[in-house]
């Protein structure tokens, strides 16, 4: 009888450990199982990405449809190249869509917003988004504001 | 001496030291099969160490310890564990496994070394416990036993596998007279009934001499006298007489070696 209680509690303990790991994975890290399998990859070049980081959100009208995979430099054009994974279900982005880097709130994280175009052709895996709008850099805004003030 | 026609253990030229201190210097001991052999000597002469050497728990510096012809110190770890299954040892403290009941303690060697079915293990354990008179105590935990009872349970465990050789490490120390009498009786009776060889390490002269067939007196790392209890009583050597009669001073001095007494007092700090 004593061994039975012990065995049950050890089993429950192991289960609790596994459950904790699953909770950590799903609730804390937001790991989704079917994420990368059904996605396609597009790239976009930006003059300035500001504080954009890998794994930032990619949104359409504020709804997340993918995430930033990696950020690099195009050495020929000297621009930032952002690779993003778009969910496979979001297959309604026309090839002339534009991408802009937005900020959540005044000091919040930065993310990419997609604005769909009107072309009949849709974005596919490996395509590039041509129209981009760089991040608003706060310092530039402030200096522009000051400069305008001075010239007035 | 017909007793030594059949010897189970043959220790030859055994040397063992701990750090700088030599414990055994050229020790020679032969143990006759089926008899009760006592190894006696003052405290600190390494009697327990000798049992550990026989059990292969310690390695000698040199010399041979032959058990049925196999030299213990050169055995591989696996062979050693096999040999030990045929040895039983009763430790000074009993050394029962504190997390098991009396029954499980006695059943333990059977479970490890045999694949007997459970009801057979039960029968054997009850037989062994019956032999030491503790069949009724089988559900108790070791912490609920008195010292003498714990030693009897340990004895039942030591003989669980019907070993060829049972070694007793100071079986009488710290026992009240009744428990002592029970143990003395038990060791003798088990030896006769089960036909194994017994080695008793002890410094309780009266009890040990009462049951031993043959006695070795060990002091300063070697055997100073041996013989049957009767023969030993007639040995003239001062050293032997001091031990056998329990005299406070003699060749084994009362004082631990020290400088000259008066000189040390006069010297100051």
């Amino acid at each position, binding site marked *: 009888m004593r*061994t039975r209680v*012990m*065995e049950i*509690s*050890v089993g429950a*303990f*192991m289960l*609790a*450990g596994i459950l*904790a*790991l699953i*909770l*950590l*994975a799903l*609730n*804390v*890290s*937001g*790991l989704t199982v079917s994420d990368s399998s059904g996605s396609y990859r597009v790239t976009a070049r930006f003059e300035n990405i500001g504080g954009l980081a890998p*794994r930032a*959100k990619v949104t359409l009208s504020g709804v997340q449809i993918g995430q930033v995979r990696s950020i690099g430099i195009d050495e020929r054009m000297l621009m930032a190249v952002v690779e993003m994974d778009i969910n496979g279900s979001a297959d309604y982005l026309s090839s002339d869509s534009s991408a802009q880097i937005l900020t959540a709130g*005044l*000091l*919040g*994280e930065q993310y990419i917003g997609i604005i769909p175009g009107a072309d009949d052709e849709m974005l596919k895996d490996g395509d590039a988004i041509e129209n981009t709008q760089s991040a608003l850099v706060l310092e530039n805004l402030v200096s522009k504001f000051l400069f305008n003030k001075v010239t007035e | 001496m017909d007793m030594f026609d059949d010897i189970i253990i043959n220790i030859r030229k055994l040397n063992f030291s701990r750090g700088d201190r030599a414990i055994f210097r050229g020790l020679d001991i032969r143990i006759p099969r089926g008899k009760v052999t006592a190894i006696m000597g003052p405290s600190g002469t390494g009697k327990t160490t000798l049992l*550990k050497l026989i*059990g292969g*728990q310690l390695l000698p510096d040199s010399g041979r310890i032959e058990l049925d012809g196999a030299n213990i110190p050169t055995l591989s*770890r696996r062979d050693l*564990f*096999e*040999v*030990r*299954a045929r*040895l*039983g*040892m009763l*430790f*000074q*403290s009993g*050394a*029962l*496994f*504190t997390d098991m009941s009396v029954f499980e303690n006695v059943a*333990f*060697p059977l479970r*490890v*070394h045999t694949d007997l079915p459970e009801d057979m293990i039960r029968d054997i354990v009850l037989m062994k416990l019956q032999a030491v008179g503790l069949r009724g105590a089988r559900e108790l935990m070791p912490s609920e036993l008195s010292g003498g009872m714990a030693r009897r349970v*340990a004895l039942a*465990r030591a003989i669980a596998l019907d070993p060829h050789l049972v070694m007793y490490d100071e079986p009488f120390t710290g026992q009240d007279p009744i428990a002592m009498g029970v143990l003395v009786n038990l060791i003798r009776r088990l030896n006769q009934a089960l036909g194994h060889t017994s080695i008793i390490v002890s410094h309780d002269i009266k009890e040990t001499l009462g049951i031993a067939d043959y006695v070795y007196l060990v002091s300063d790392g070697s055997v100073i006298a041996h013989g049957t209890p009767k023969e030993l009583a007639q040995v003239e050597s001062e050293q032997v007489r001091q031990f056998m009669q329990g005299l406070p001073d003699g060749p084994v001095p009362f004082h631990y070696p020290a400088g000259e007494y008066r000189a040390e007092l006069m010297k100051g700090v």
Partner: protein
Amino acid sequence: MLDQIQALGRYGLTRLGAVGRSGMLLAHVLVARPQPLKMFPLLLKQIYFVGVLSLVIILVSGMFIGMVLGLQGYTILVDYGSEQAVGQMVALSLVRELAPVVAALLFAGRAGSALTAEIGLMKATEQLSSLEMIGVDPYRQIIAPRFWAGFICMPILSAIFAIVGVWGGALVSVDWLGIYEGSFWANMQHSVDFYEDILNGLIKAVAFGFVVTWIAVFQGYDCVPTSEGISQATTRTVVYASLWVLGLDFILTALMFGDL
């Protein structure tokens, strides 16, 4: 002068001897090929003693540490108007650092010391010798199950610690301080990466479990078998294990997150 050098040399040799013996012990445990059928009940029992019985202390301290993190994080972050990031702060500090480290420290105090004392007492009461004389390898019967139990339990305890801590943090910041629940979880999920953070945290926990149980088991097995020796060995277990956990944590952190 020469005496001091000799003392230093002797100290060094003693230490080196202990390191060597602990290595031997580890080798024996890893090599002692367990018979799974006979090992399993022993392992089960040890997981119960080492893991299940440590659960209460892990739950309570995990929750309080999570709550404190939530409170502290809020008061710091609210000055910058980014109190929504408290979820991210609580989760990252728990998952990466606090859960494995604090759980390991508690584990060393709760289970490690008990392991040392138990094995030391077995040695003092000749139970280990008696096992050897029965023909049972104490490494296999006593040491290995305890070692593997610690190894298994530590990551489980660490994961439980982390999840309870996150829950405690959510309790304070969402329910009491009124941070919007959606942004609390979204921020957290956005910044915590499963492989980078959670798996690395678990790897840390496994490493700590290894070190703590190794030290605990070795100190017990190697102790002077007297009551004083056992108490010293128990103290050494807690001290050495804690120091090793903290030192190892720095090394592992540098390896895992150093280039970020």
